[in-house]
């Protein structure tokens, strides 16, 4: 596609439920990133994929968070036993090559997750 697509755009879930957030990167982009943006804050890194593998998951806050990218394209961020503190905008970004101090990310419009 022309840009990074994230679905759903909004998700409201009850505390304790499981949610999946989807990211469809720009075609041909091998690097994919997930960030979390709390209200009034800048995005914070969660996980980075190069191809199918999670090359860096150091930003995942705890083991309730997990992400996959089985075919090296679409990625799914999975959150188990959601807590109210998980409420945030979840942003996905992709780039042609690893954005290590050079290439720029293209961000999607995000999924606004609200845990009630």
């Amino acid at each position, binding site marked *: 596609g022309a840009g990074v697509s994230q679905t759903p755009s909004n998700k409201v879930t009850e505390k304790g439920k499981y949610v999946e957030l989807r990211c469809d990167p720009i075609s041909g982009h091998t690097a994919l990133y997930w960030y979390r943006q709390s209200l009034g804050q*800048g*995005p914070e*890194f969660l996980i*980075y994929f190069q191809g199918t593998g999670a090359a*860096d998951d150091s930003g995942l806050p705890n083991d309730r968070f997990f992400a996959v990218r089985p075919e090296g394209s679409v990625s799914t961020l999975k959150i188990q036993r959601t807590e109210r503190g998980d409420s945030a905008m979840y942003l996905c*970004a992709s780039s042609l090559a690893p954005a*290590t*101090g050079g290439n720029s990310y293209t*961000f999607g*419009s995000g999924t606004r997750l609200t845990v009630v």
Partner: protein
Amino acid sequence: QQQVKQSPQSLIVQKGGISIINCAYENTAFDYFPWYQQFPGKGPALLIAIRPDVSEKKEGRFTISFNKSAKQFSLHIMDSQPGDSATYFCAASLTGANNLFFGTGTRLTVIP
């Protein structure tokens, strides 16, 4: 620990005026400093970026000034327009790292 500190938190500027947003960092290994613009309900979009080997970069009405010795960099928006009203984030990264470190954002409002 905030790797990149940004100020002010919010800024109101008259149309035609200059908007200035400042950022400071601690890690001297950072070698890429982008600025992102974010409109409500959208993801951040790259606006302009600089590397530490230059002190200034200009693209249209947007200029980054970089002070390596002070570990500070700033965004200047000349002739600010109402359409510039958005949240601006500075960020930093280093070669070999997998992520960007973002500032906390500045909400800019340009009054017609």
